[in-house]
């Protein structure tokens, strides 16, 4: 039996890698993929807690997170396609219309 805190540490490592990706990359699509990575890390934590507490609620939550992630991916990628059509680039540094 593996200690369940190992799963939480793994989840923390994956979340941190996702955060570093969002902070360092410029390509909007890769930033989006890093957000998916962070969502996956949170899902792992949810399933771990569900196992630890002998409860199914965590798994139901992961089900709903996946639904929201699918909706978010569809809308987000449509926004990226629209941005590329208007600006000709997916570099987030080029998108500064709302910058003060």
């Amino acid at each position, binding site marked *: 039996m*593996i200690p369940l805190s190992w799963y939480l540490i793994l989840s923390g*490592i994956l979340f*941190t890698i996702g955060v570093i990706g969002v902070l360092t990359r410029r390509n909007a699509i*890769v930033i989006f993929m890093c957000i998916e*990575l962070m969502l996956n890390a949170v899902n792992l934590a949810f399933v771990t807690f569900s196992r630890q507490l002998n*409860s199914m609620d965590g798994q139901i939550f992961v089900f709903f997170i996946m639904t929201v992630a699918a*909706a978010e991916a569809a809308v987000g990628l449509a926004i990226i396609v629209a941005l590329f059509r208007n600006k000709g680039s997916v570099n987030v540094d080029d998108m500064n219309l709302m910058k003060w």
Partner: protein
Amino acid sequence: MLEGLVFIVMGLIAIVCAICVVFQKNPIYSAVFLIQTMVSLAVLYVLLHAEFIAAIQVMVYAGAIMVLFVFVIMLLNLSSGDVEGGKDKLILQKTSAIILGLILFAVIGVVTVKTVLHGTQGEYTPEYISRIGNTQLVGKLLFTDYVFPFEIASILLFAAVLGAIILAKKEIKE
């Protein structure tokens, strides 16, 4: 013993592939490595007795969502040089991002290790789940206790489909 070995191998694959997602220049390679990360997470879900979640992880995440990503990458036809080639607009952006990330991980690690996690134990022990079946239990809960969020999720997906079509469709000039 075997369980620990599987955990270590799959955890290492997940971490290495996640690092590759961040540091690959070409977005299509990032997508492939992200698929590998998701598949190894699915194996970990099986170790945690969440078989249904593992199955939909492979089908929905690695299948549907990542295919959408790969479609968009191919649609936009980006070459690897054009996006990341420019100079840093913020000074020391990469270094400070990595330092802040390590601090974040230290905080997460300390909280995880130091905190003793208590909670009321539920009724779904692994023996109970394996007697009835994980998928059947998830289905039963979805259509009894969680039926309202389930219906809301269908409305959310409908709204997302409409939003994606409206955002991505070409403007037709009159």
